[in-house]
């Protein structure tokens, strides 16, 4: 069933929290409503459920990939043209360690950034109801609602003190 996105805007964060409370009380699925703010608040300040993530897996995976590639790169390229320089062994571990370290870290950082975007659910160019005043300090409570329940949800948002509601 198609869903409508409804946004309630609040001047006072406490009203936003009340709207969240009311949505919880109305047995809405926590995945169907969210709070939008222009500034980070302490986690759980609006009574929202604390989002879980698996970001930490990304750098570990990245580091493993980077490490493997670096070992292959440093070893294979030196073995491909085995010329002794400076009396060092062809597979000179301390020198390989430096390149390996850099590539491991590079890969870990790149994967972390990919992980951040993935876990933040970005990019998302079709975000539903939104208002530019949120980045000016208004609190937005956005609800994804099945057709037919729009008025009920708007009433909940308005009862909590919404200065305005809008649909998308």
């Amino acid at each position, binding site marked *: 069933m198609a869903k409508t996105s409804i946004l309630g805007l609040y001047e006072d964060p406490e009203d936003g929290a009340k709207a969240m409370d009311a949505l919880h009380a109305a047995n809405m699925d926590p995945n169907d409503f969210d709070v939008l703010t222009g500034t980070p608040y302490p986690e759980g300040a609006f009574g929202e459920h604390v989002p879980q993530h698996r970001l930490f897996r990304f750098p570990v995976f990245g580091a493993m990939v980077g490490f493997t590639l670096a070992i292959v790169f440093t070893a294979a390229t030196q073995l*491909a043209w085995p010329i002794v320089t400076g009396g060092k062994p062809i597979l000179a571990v301390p020198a390989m360690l430096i390149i390996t370290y850099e590539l491991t870290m590079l890969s870990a950082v790149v994967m972390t950034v990919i992980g951040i975007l993935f876990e933040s659910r970005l990019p998302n160019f079709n975000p539903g109801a939104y208002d*530019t*005043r949120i980045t000016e300090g208004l609190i937005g409570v956005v609800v994804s609602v099945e057709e037919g329940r729009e008025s009920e949800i708007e009433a909940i948002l308005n009862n909590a003190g919404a200065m305005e509601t809008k649909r998308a």
Partner: protein
Amino acid sequence: MRQGRQLDEIRVNKELLNGALETPAWWKWAVLFFATIVVTGFVVFGIQTNKGLGVTGLSRPVFWGAYITTFVFWVGISHAGIMISAILRLTQAEWRRPVTRAAELLTVFSLLTALSFPVIHAGRPWRIIYWIFPYDFARGLWPNIRSPLIWDPAAIGTYLTGSTLFLYVALLPDLGVLRDRTTGWRHAMYGALSLGWRGNPRQWRLQTVAGVLLSALMLPIFVSVHSIVSWDFAVTPGVEGWNSTIFAPYFVIGAVHSGVSAVVTMMALMRWLWKWDNFIRPEHFDALARLLIVVATAWFGFTVVEILFSLYTLEGPELAFRDMQIFQWPWSGMFVTFLLCAFFIPVTMWLFKSVRSSIVLMFWTSILVNIGMWLERFLIIVPSLARKQPFVYTWGSYQPSIVEFTMMAWSFAFVAMNMLLFARFFPLIPLFESKESMVFTTEMKIGRTTIPAVLREQE
């Protein structure tokens, strides 16, 4: 105590976006000025490429001169960003907030500038490709990973990529603000760059976790970069003054010293130029100066130990080299200037609260530090090479030519111009950090006194 006023989010947006959404009158003149120097630099570089390195002061035995000094100098400056951003983020220092973006930006632009110098220095810049990248596949010839000159681009490339990504991730919420405050092509650009940022709890949580995680990942890279640059020198056994095991941490702590000082310079300029008195406050300079006292003292300790152990064996060439570096003109003049500028004058002044809170004095002392730190690199590189041939005695000296001075001026203009261009499109002070600070700072009353306090989330 907190100085300055608490602002609401609309005021924060308005004040901090005054550079990105409006064009200050001085801006285009400043950009034009720096652009002129940058263009001149490119022309001079063209002349050097055409005529060869003979137009520089480089000659036997000194083949590493002002270019390599300036390369090391800018790599050093680049340590500002991660030092400020990562370490202060990990230690939850509240005063870091207005400083982080500019420091990260300085890292990116100074690294780009630093990377240019080996290319400029190479004389035939196209050959740099042979040096770093695999070439001549037909014969299977590859770069020699045993060479420190290969370690350098690996480290700097990693640092530059990581710093740029770090900067971008921390910019996402502010790009959302810009998207919401603009129209037309700018709105489209910010919309695309912000990737649809909305500011829901998941995105904010990831932003916080990302800050900590990327900081933790960037810190070891930051340490490795200047260490590897130092090994360009330290692993060379034949040059007095270079072959020292302490070089890696010594370079890193020196880089932090010069980088944080550069941040002070930049913060003072930002406050004056964009009138961000409510955000960049004397308390921030005070905190940075306290940090600099610790860093500068540690760096000085390393300097003393480095010199102490270089004399340790009491071998003739080493003693003669140090004698020249410290006591013979013109090196002696530079040595004294270096110590006075990089340590004695600024640190003595920073001991006084009145100096730490004076933005003018902090500005000038931070510039002194960087004059001193440039000289430090020059004194490490050039005198050592001037007498590196112990058996053939082809000793010589070196003086940078006008071409090298121009390229050095180019480097400063290049960084300044890029910063100004960035500031025209993006906020130099993170908006969301300033807003977060409004939420997370409070006051606490104990008896009859009130002290500043912060909120800490329960782990």
